[in-house]
């Protein structure tokens, strides 16, 4: 188990380094450097930047150094918590990200829970009662959820809820709580606002997971160990929950690794539609404004989140599956 753990940590660190190189390359892809951008923005507001000043800025940020020196300076700064400056928000990138980090993580966590709670039981039911009316209904809504884009569901639901209850389900906080300190009222308000975005963000994931769970379980139900369990005298539900469902959960766990970065990058449009204060929304603004430090940071962190998610799901898999845990002893 320890060997397994150490090996995974090493893999994760290597992958994180590779992602950081890619993020750095992306940041440096646009023609010119950020000083050029800075001069342009200053010009737009009527300020002239002198050639000397530009040169000293380049020196300060090390833009005249060789690429590998630039990279090591950049990554050192990032590891020290200095993510650069966002021109679009006119604030350090770190401050911009911190504003919406809690919201994003909360939304992500609830979406994961939502997907699991909804998809796993439905997937089990669909597999065990294959070709039953319930299975067809689940399959139908599953494909519907996969096929219809998030923002469309969002708009329709927003209108339906507003029309029937008069509740405007946009944002994550009502106006009076937006800058208020945490309280029971604020948490309740947040919960009310969370339901719609969580359900919509979770739709595609839920639909995909139902299909995965159903397909896995259908495979597992035919395995000889199920017959063995049946021949022991277990009831059908006892044996299904103990054996094949355990097996079928493995891919579900590995899938979860990808949900967190999806919440950032996959929720961009929905965040605009529902006015959700998430990093995804900041990301789109940064991209359209060529705000390279902010977008670079988001790219870097979604990459790192994927790696961390994979690492965590590897540990979870090792925890539930002794074959993985013990193979390297």
């Amino acid at each position: 188990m320890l060997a397994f753990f150490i090996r995974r940590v090493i893999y994760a660190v290597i992958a994180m380094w590779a992602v950081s190189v890619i993020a750095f390359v992306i940041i440096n892809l646009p023609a010119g450097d950020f000083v050029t951008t800075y001069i342009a923005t200053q010009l737009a507001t009527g300020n002239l930047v002198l050639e000397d000043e530009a040169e000293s800025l380049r020196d300060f940020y090390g833009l005249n150094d060789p690429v590998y020196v630039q990279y090591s300076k950049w990554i050192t700064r990032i590891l020290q918590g200095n993510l650069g400056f966002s021109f679009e928000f006119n604030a350090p990138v770190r401050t911009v990200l911190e504003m919406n980090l809690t919201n994003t993580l909360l939304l992500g966590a609830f979406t994961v829970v939502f997907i699991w709670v909804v998809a796993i039981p439905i997937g089990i039911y669909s597999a065990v009662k294959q070709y039953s009316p319930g299975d067809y209904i689940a399959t139908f809504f599953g494909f519907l959820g996969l096929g219809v884009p998030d923002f469309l569901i969002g708009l329709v639901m927003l209108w339906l809820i507003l029309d029937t209850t008069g509740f405007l389900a946009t944002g994550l906080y009502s106006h009076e709580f937006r800058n208020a300190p945490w309280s029971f009222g604020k948490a309740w308000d947040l919960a009310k606002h969370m339901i719609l975005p969580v359900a919509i963000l979770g739709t595609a994931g839920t639909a995909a997971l139902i299909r995965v769970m159903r397909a896995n379980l259908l495979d597992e139900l035919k395995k000889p160990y199920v017959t063995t369990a049946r021949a022991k005298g277990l009831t059908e539900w006892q044996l299904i929950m103990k054996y094949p469902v355990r097996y079928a959960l493995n891919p579900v766990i590995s899938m979860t690794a990808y949900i967190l970065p999806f919440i950032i990058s996959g929720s961009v449009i929905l965040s605009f539609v529902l006015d959700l204060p998430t990093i995804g929304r900041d990301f789109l603004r940064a991209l359209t404004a060529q705000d390279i430090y902010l977008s670079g940071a988001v790219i870097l962190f979604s990459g790192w989140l994927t790696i961390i998610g994979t690492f965590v799901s590897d540990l979870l898999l090792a925890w539930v599956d002794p074959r993985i845990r013990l193979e390297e002893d």
Partner: protein
Amino acid sequence: MTTETRQPTAPLDSGFRRNDVAAPLDSRVRGNDVASARNDDMSGGNDVASARNDVASSGNGESPVAGDAILSVRGLETQFFTDEGVVRAVDGVDFDVLPGTTMGIVGESGCGKSITAKSILQIVEAPGRITNGEINYNPSGDAGSATDLLSLGANSDAMRSIRGGEISMIFQEPMTSFSGLHTFGNQIDETLRLHTNLSKQERFDLGVDWLARVGIPNPTQRMHEYPFRFSGGQLQRAMIAMAMCTNPRVLIADEPTTALDVTTQAQILDLLQRMQEENDMAILFITHDLGVISEIADDVTVMYLGKVVETGPVFSFFDEPKHPYSKALLTSIPSMFTSSRERLPSISGSIPHPQNRPMGCAFHPRCQSFMAGTCDVGEPELQSVNEEQEVSCFLYEGQ
């Protein structure tokens, strides 16, 4: 085979065949109720043999009137309702398993052997369904006290307490028949929890005890290990331990040696025989391997395309097979005396798809003794041809 013919002949019959026909085929001990006279001609005549005879003769006192089958299958039909149509996988099967003896069921792949076994425990997977028949289970041996298992619901408490408790089953592929995510101890504990009232510690101790009895070293440590740490042979031993730990009266063994190498096969067969002797248990042994049948079975039932074509004592089957299919099977076994360049006889053709069952006798397109106008018209019935054997073939009609 019908009860009427079976019952009067059985006592004589079993005594007769075991003492008389033994020598060439049978080099092994076999648990049974009338074995006493047998030590003399036993090739081994060893400890196991005498131990077995002790068990057997002590069992003899209490054992039911011989001939009262512990498990009696009558007219069993199991069909699969697929999109392409109904597959009659088991199509009217009759046989009896006598207490303490081994009934071997042989046949090619796809002839319905395994489905028959699963039907007895009512664990046939959808879209399969038992559509007809009786499975009379009579553990006490008293006449008239049999229970028709099919009258119990497949998921009823009564059926589930028999399944794995009184009638256990072991399977073909030990490597995939355990859950790889649970320790062996967990899996045997489950069986004991379902069928006994023992405490957790008692169940654990019993599990250790059974692992030791099936010959697995370090049983206490093995209880905490996962199945992938066991070899194939060890897993089959462990499966036998898991099936035996509730002291079942009948063990259904569905090709338990097929996935194992020959040396391990022999060990597993020895183990099963020892278990049978120690526990006075009947075995329903399913295989396509006639060599294995000659080792372990007392009686043989030959199946072809979901039907019984021949049934009788194992020695009669090897000495004087009656059905052309049985004869063909026996001639296609390689023998030590076959010269090296000789082609092995094989049965022409292959098993038809169950949905294209031939008219008349299902075997007629492959049969050496095919009689036009008879075999392709009517279906033969299973009937006695002598005191011991029953055959379903027009060659013996009217005898």
